[in-house]
């Protein structure tokens, strides 16, 4: 079973040289910590930076330099700042090769819900609806079940949707799954996790191939 850093570390291995990547709030933000030194990858944050660097050293924070999670950040050499319309032009125009974001629910048809719990919580969708509607390559990073132990991988989402038929891959604390043909297809198991455990934690249709390898970390 993976912790949040494990999920982030596994997702980092999906990233290829030459990619522009948008990382959402939460687990996705951690992905940046696992990119190999010297790999040509640039992080976009939708509030207006390309070439986002690590958090600043204590005392070097700049209130005018934050990411979409409102965290203080730094800029890498070759970074660019731009306005919000220009930022979403990049996203909507599919110039960003990978989007990683969290979710409250994902369906077996690739729908995603992550912005609202009716009557309880309404934080807003922020840039998530633009990201999921536009990106060709979306990975959802989340825990397999919620705090009540209920599956977050469902036949259909019960919460208001953020986007439809857009998620291609899900990485959880238990497994990696691809979404196609109305089902979650098990690709890799987290260390120490069995296919049966994944099946028990997955409410949506799960396809388990004959042989499912364990995740490898390099």
């Amino acid at each position: 079973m993976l912790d949040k850093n494990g999920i982030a570390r596994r997702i980092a291995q999906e990233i290829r040289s030459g990619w522009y990547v948008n990382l959402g709030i939460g687990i996705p933000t951690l992905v940046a910590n696992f990119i190999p030194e010297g790999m040509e990858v640039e992080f976009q944050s939708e509030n207006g930076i390309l070439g986002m660097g690590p958090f600043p050293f204590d005392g070097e924070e700049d209130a005018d330099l934050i990411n979409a999670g409102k965290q203080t950040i730094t800029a890498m050499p070759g970074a660019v700042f731009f306005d919000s319309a220009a930022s979403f032009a990049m996203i909507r125009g599919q110039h960003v090769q990978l989007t990683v974001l969290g979710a409250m629910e994902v369906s077996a048809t690739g729908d995603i819900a992550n912005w609202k719990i009716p009557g309880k919580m309404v934080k807003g969708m922020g840039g998530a609806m633009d990201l999921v509607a536009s990106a060709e390559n979306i990975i959802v990073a989340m825990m397999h079940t919620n705090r009540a132990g209920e599956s977050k991988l469902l036949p259909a989402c019960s919460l208001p949707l953020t986007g439809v038929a857009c998620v291609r891959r899900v990485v959880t604390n238990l497994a990696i799954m691809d979404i196609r043909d109305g089902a979650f297809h098990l690709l890799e198991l987290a260390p120490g996790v069995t296919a049966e455990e994944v099946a028990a934690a997955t409410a949506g249709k799960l396809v388990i191939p004959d042989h499912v390898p364990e995740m490898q970390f390099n």
Partner: protein
Amino acid sequence: MAISKVVKDVGAACAGIEDGMTLMLGGFGLCGIPECSIAELVRLGVKDLTCISNNAGVDDFGLGLLLQERQIRKMISSYVGENDEFERQMLSGELEVDLIPQGSLAERCRAGGAGIPAFFTPAGYGTEVAEGKEVREFNGKPHILETALTADFAFVKAWKGDTAGNLIFKATARNFNPMMAMAGKITIAEVEELVPLGILDPNSIHTPGIYVQRIFQGSHYDKRIEQRTVRTQTASND
């Protein structure tokens, strides 16, 4: 000869703002918000405002200050977390809230300033954001029609500005400010540094003065940080 937009202070800048008006306010979270203008709006006590802003501030800063005073009737935003008073007013029905995808919000402001009354975007298709909106397929993909947004007054905060109203923003404090400057019938710019004509590089202006009707030298910037995150010196030395 360049057209001067300079007014003497925030009071002069805010002349003409009335109850019930629609205001746009730049900023992302607490980054790049028009602090001086917000303080003046509280002082003026204008009510029943419709505020278009990506966020709604925090409880005791940014637009949260107007929420505390019940000056806002409706918020048009993309993300409103981190604000208890906001949540209370919204759930109780005191405050009307229109949530819009962030990219659509930015583009709708730009469209309002650019004379484009409507455009198609894929964002929000199949969600409640699309309810009541026209859907059309382009290149095999469904899109929804979104319309332009404008405001009676737009408030923006820049790093540097000159007397002609030309503005330069700093880093990610740019965010929504340039599009909102475009979309305001009257746009008020407050700047950290007001410089004479000819100082700013004409090649590096973010908002041309044509979009700014009034500009003033701001003061006492708090520039509060919402999520102070740092790394330790040791970690970096690894």
